[in-house]
């Protein structure tokens, strides 16, 4: 693969690093010990939001440091914290209606449809579309579209309407999951059985038999077809 050295500029300062590194490992190669700006290192936690630009290109790009390969001429800075507004609520007292958002996140309704959020999202989420879906009270669509959001904050940093999209989105998903999706009846049923003390004896029985008997039962157990 491409292991030639490339030049990158960490907060404007030049370092030469192998071209096959990610932004995160390149910073470590350069000698940075990361405290903020790294979490899971696998693209799931949103801690390593990074903005960058190439020499002679006016466009500001955004991505995750742990999932993005360095490229020659990258000027970069990490964005380890985004000061964003988050409403406090008791989910049990809310309803899955647009009024909740009007009250908790009134700025959500000032979206100017510029699509800057969508362009910034490292998860390729249609951020503007989920914000618009909430405006139309289509929580199912908002929940579906925003599902992969890792709450990195990059969208919020680009938003002229100063919306913290990801905080609005988690509220939408929780309302949808809690109120609009039917609960699993079979789960309820099993809990009722357990409340009545069912399965206690069966489990106790397994706890009391010898290792040999357990092994026998384990190897002869049947397996549900794929």
């Amino acid at each position, binding site marked *: *693969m491409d292991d030639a050295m490339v030049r990158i500029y960490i907060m404007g300062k030049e370092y030469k690093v192998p071209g*096959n590194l*990610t932004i995160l*490992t390149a910073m*470590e*190669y350069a*000698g940075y*010990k*990361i405290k*903020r700006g*790294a*979490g*899971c*290192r*696998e*693209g*799931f*936690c949103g*801690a390593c939001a990074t903005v960058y630009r190439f020499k002679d290109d006016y466009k500001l790009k955004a991505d995750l440091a742990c*999932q*993005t390969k360095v490229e020659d001429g990258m000027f970069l800075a990490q964005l380890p914290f985004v000061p964003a507004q988050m409403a*406090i609520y008791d*989910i049990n007292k809310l309803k899955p209606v647009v009024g909740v958002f009007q009250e908790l996140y009134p700025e959500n309704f000032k979206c100017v449809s510029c699509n800057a959020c969508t362009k910034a999202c490292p998860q390729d989420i249609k951020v503007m579309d989920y914000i618009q879906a909430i405006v139309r009270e289509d929580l199912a669509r908002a*929940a579906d579209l925003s*599902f*992969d959001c890792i*709450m990195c904050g990059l969208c919020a940093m680009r938003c002229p309407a100063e919306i913290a999209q990801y905080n609005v989105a988690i509220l939408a*998903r*929780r*309302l*949808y*999951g*809690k109120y609009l*999706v*039917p609960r*699993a*009846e*079979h*789960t*309820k049923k*099993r*809990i009722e059985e*357990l409340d009545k003390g069912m*399965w*206690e004896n*069966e*489990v106790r*029985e*397994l*706890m009391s038999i010898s*290792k040999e008997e*357990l*092994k026998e039962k*384990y*190897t002869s*157990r*049947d*397996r*549900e077809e*794929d």
Partner: protein
Amino acid sequence: MALVGGYTEKMWESIRKVEETRKDRCEKQYPAISLEKGEELLNKYHPDYKEGNTREIHVGPSKGSKVVQELADLLEAYPRINPDLIDLSKVDMETDVLIIGGGGAGASAALLASMNGAHVTLVTKLRIGDANTIMAQGGIQAADKDNDNPAIHYLDIIGGGHFDNNPELVKALVMDAPGIIAWLEELGVMFDKEEDGTMITIHGGGTSRKRMHSARDYTGGEIMKTLRDEVKNNSESIEIVEFSPAVELMLDEEGRAAGAILFNLETEEYLVMRSKAVIIATGGFGRLHIQNFPTTNHYGATADGLVMGYRAGLKLLFMDTVQYHPTGAAYPEQIIGQLVTEKVRGTGAEPVNAHGEQFVYPLEPRDIEAAALIREVESGNGIETPTGMKGVWLDTPIVELKHGKGFLEKNFPAMYRQNMRFDINMAETPILVYPTLHYQNGGLEIASDCRTAIPGLFIAGEVSGGVHGRNRLMGNSLLDVLVFGRRAGTTATEYIQGVSLGKPTLNHVKSYIKELEKLNIPRDRVAPMILPDYTRKETKEKQLTTNYLGTLW
């Protein structure tokens, strides 16, 4: 080097062989291995069985037992702080229940303690949610379907754990499981469901019923984001302190838990945090890179809780066994070691060698599956990458042959996206995998209500040992951290009733140091680790500082 669809021409030669056998494999099922043959395979190829993998430790409550080398180095190490230099009379913070760790176990403990009326402070190393929990992709087990029940779940767990699990803990796990699923639904977690609310469940390695519940391939993410949101919404009773790892526990004069010493990562101050009860929920040890394996774990998975709990007097269980996930990414270079969730095999993907041959049943328990992959590569049937890494193929396109076009992108958005970043379309070409360090099977000894040998000290989650025996099955760990996280929160709140804040001491640390001195342990061995050290040797040689150890010695 020219790449087509993300791969070199040499790799493509092998991919073509995988394509040739795909249709045939799709129609046949490769048989599962017998218990005896499985043992044999483990003995020969599993990293746990490698000579020199473990050593006997000479200090602390489990003195004389064998633990993996990398952990032994941390247990036989000096504290970061010199206990004589810390003024314990100057208290910086106080709380009822101190929770150490902001993953799934810590967050659920916080919610239950708060619900039961305690004032909670949750301290964590990075941000709340920067944890292994948020990375879990595949799913969570619970026996909540008609053809299943807690006893069958019990049998699967205990067999997977090689019959060494603590039965009381397993019972708690299987009996609480359905309630956990309902609790998550109640909080708004979006599980994969049928229209009528029926959970879509699949098999995982070692399951005899389809009981893996999931939220696409962001199961842990969906759970963690929801729990975090709920914790933040309880800000009146739960205080969150980020970037402040605990480095040592404090005990009072009667030997009860009395708080912890925290380290502010940014200002580098050590702070005294007093509490009536302490819950350790610091997760696992993947970042110790046991036997130099790459890892799937988050940046802060460095065994700190094991070190602190052990110094305070708790025993360790099963620290000679480590879970290697059979399928870590082996290519491209940038994502080596990152997880390819078992759920991919759960929906039909198959490990295949360089010649396009299948060599193992795809859903063996993890240790056996991993050993089979290692055998294949060590016998010369692996595929080499341009950087010299070796792996085997995980045939993913076969999943779409079974379930239809578009299935992978829809059901594995995280992994699909990750590979597409490197031009690899997993719906069209297989991906290269090799075992990666994944999970700490053992840990600190606990009872089923999360009590420990130390009054006021409770433990929950991956840092604990016993529930999974010698090998955990997929989907039982997310379950574990929620079951025992909740239990710890409840038990700790019961415990603090009538307990007043004790006078904190670091006496246990002082006597531990004496033991270390007797053994002539080198002074530069310091723990807990807090963060792994990825600084290059060349850089370090020029830094001329011990700053990273942060000690007061």
